[in-house]
């Protein structure tokens, strides 16, 4: 697929088109198997009578401490959430550190304490791990990988693939978008914007479990991290016999995020979140699900943002505030590197 001289560019890791092509043409093609080929957030595996969800994620966020969280908390939440949106109940995590020589011990301790706290909070156990130290300059401070497994109830198997989605189903989001990406960016770049934007970094497992206990009409879930809500919706619609329509006016964006995006020319729909879930609910129970979500601290600002439609198959269309319509495409090029 590539010329011999081609190299990896930052755009290959941003969750957009180039990364998709890389995953598809190099990783999936060569690792191909029935479980991987599903390309769900977590692999779903049957072992004897049990159905296990299994996932992994690496964290390279810069800066490692940011308003609302740090690389450690993020590493726990990220993997917990990948399991949770598959419909699974997260149980055990592994953690691997790649640390740069000279990294301050007190910062490492701070990160570890934060991970331990978040693991307790999410009721998961960190049961195995690994540590590597590399020469100064060979990695940037600290990189963390976490993997996790959870138990999946068989009745939730279709959630990660969204196979039961039908036109008329509603799309629900549990709050404002873009907070994580903008909080990290503001902490990293020298804008000196005086904002109170905090990362929304949070473990969603107990929130999601409550939703699943209250309704059998949850047809799909995905956490809109890198690439944002726009990317999740595009991945969902891709190659499907339905389209997606969302309403700009019903998508919650905080004043601070909105302002930063206006100034910098970013679209909040493409900015990363770390405590959000995009959920597709059957029409009949969407209000019930919305009410359950609103009762939880993590879902207070939940809104129905759009619906599954029978036309424009494979495409995501946004109805703009000013009355127009436009396609929301998958992200191309570089937007915000190293936000998770």
């Amino acid at each position: 697929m590539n010329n011999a001289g081609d190299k990896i560019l930052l755009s290959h890791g941003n969750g957009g088109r180039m990364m998709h092509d890389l995953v598809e043409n190099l990783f999936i093609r060569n690792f191909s198997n029935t479980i991987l080929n599903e390309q769900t957030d977590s692999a779903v595996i049957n072992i004897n009578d049990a159905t296990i969800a299994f996932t992994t994620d690496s964290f390279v966020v810069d800066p490692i401490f940011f308003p609302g969280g740090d690389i450690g908390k993020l590493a726990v939440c990220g993997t917990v959430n990948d399991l949770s949106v598959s419909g699974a109940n997260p149980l055990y995590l592994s953690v691997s550190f790649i640390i740069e020589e000279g990294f301050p011990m007190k910062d490492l301790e701070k990160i570890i304490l934060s991970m331990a706290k978040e693991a307790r909070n999410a009721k998961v156990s960190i049961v195995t791990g690994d540590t590597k130290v590399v020469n100064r300059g060979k990695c940037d401070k600290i990189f963390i990988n976490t993997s996790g497994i959870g138990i999946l109830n068989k009745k939730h198997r279709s959630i990660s693939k969204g196979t039961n989605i039908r036109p008329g189903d509603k799309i629900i989001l549990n709050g404002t978008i873009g907070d994580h990406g903008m909080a990290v960016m503001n902490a990293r770049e020298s804008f000196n914007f005086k904002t109170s934007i905090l990362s929304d970094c949070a473990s969603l497992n107990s929130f999601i479990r409550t939703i699943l206990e209250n309704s059998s009409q949850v047809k799909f879930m995905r956490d809109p991290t890198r690439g944002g809500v726009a990317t999740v919706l595009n991945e969902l619609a891709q190659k499907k016999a339905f389209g997606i329509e969302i309403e700009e006016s019903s998508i919650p964006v905080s004043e601070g995020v909105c302002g930063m995006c206006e100034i910098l020319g970013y679209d909040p729909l493409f900015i990363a979140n770390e405590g959000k879930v995009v959920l597709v609910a059957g029409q009949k129970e969407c209000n019930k699900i919305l009410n359950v979500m609103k009762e939880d601290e993590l879902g207070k600002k939940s809104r129905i943002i759009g619906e599954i439609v029978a036309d424009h198959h494979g495409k995501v269309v946004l109805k703009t505030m000013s009355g127009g319509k436009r396609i929301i495409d998958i992200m191309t090029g570089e937007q915000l590197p190293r936000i998770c």
Partner: protein
Amino acid sequence: MKYVDEYRDRNLIEAVAREIKKVSRKEISLMEVCGGHTMAIHRFGLTSLLPPNIRLLSGPGCPVCVSSQKFIDIAIGYSRIPGIIIVTYGDLIRVPGSTSSLEKEKANGNDVRIVYSVLEALEIAKQNPGRPVIFLGIGFETTAPATAATIIKAQHDNTPDFYVLSAHKIMPPVMKALVNDGVKLHGFIAPGHVSAITGSGIYEDLAWKYGLGVVISGFEPMDIMQSVLMLVEQIEKENPRVEIQYKRVVQPEGNKIAQQLMAQVFTLSDDEWRGLGTIPGSGLKLQERYTAFDPANKFPVDIPEPEEPKGCICGEILRGLKIPTDCTNFAKRCTPVTPVGACMVSGEGTCATYYKYREN
């Protein structure tokens, strides 16, 4: 968000659209010459709100798109010199040069950094003594004053090894060149932020000598719709003149301090525009007393004659003669991931805008 939502109010926009339909009789073409306007028109789907006798054309308003291939090739050449740090605004790094791009050079290990403000480039120079820092100065009257201020500061602070490769340009000569070139136009939606610096006087010629309507517009949908209405009224009454719609930002006299900074640091030069050729007096080069900041004197690079990409009609698109969908490369060989021409790279480029906001 306050001061934004009001300008996106659907009812107000529709009311202005109705008024435009009522007033407008003639077949007219209006051109916007600012990438921000191109973006807003497509992002908010404004063309669909206008009657068919009003055509909106996108002109050469995206600084990345009009930067010549040679400029990109020189920047790539500099990035390959060991020790040099290239500092640039983000959009430029993906623009394809003749054989490479700054993004690819970065992946090759060359030091290319993205900033949001030219002052950050100066900061990088201060933090890397002994390493030459070259800032790629692109943009019109909006970004040129900041570059000028930074050069003055660098001189004042005695910062060594800080350079600016200037491809800064000014707007009025290209607007006149387009009309002289035979582009059929009735009026300009003039750039709001350029005008905030220059004031409205720079367009007087276009109204008096060329008989064109000029309305300096803001960037929200309501701004643009109102500007179209003002232009339609001017044209219907055959009373072309320069008007400011974007009064909350633009003063007739402009920003005197910014004008003074530009005048202190830059002098006009003949400059090359992608697809349009060389336009006399349209570029800003460093004045003689600031030549120490010009990398050309210190680091000669040997650049072969640039190769324009085959089949690319960026030039005709920038002149408003064709639209992106007229190009055989559009959305096929040329996409935001694999841009052939510069108009597909920048978020403000006409092709990228058409691609991103193509209608269902």
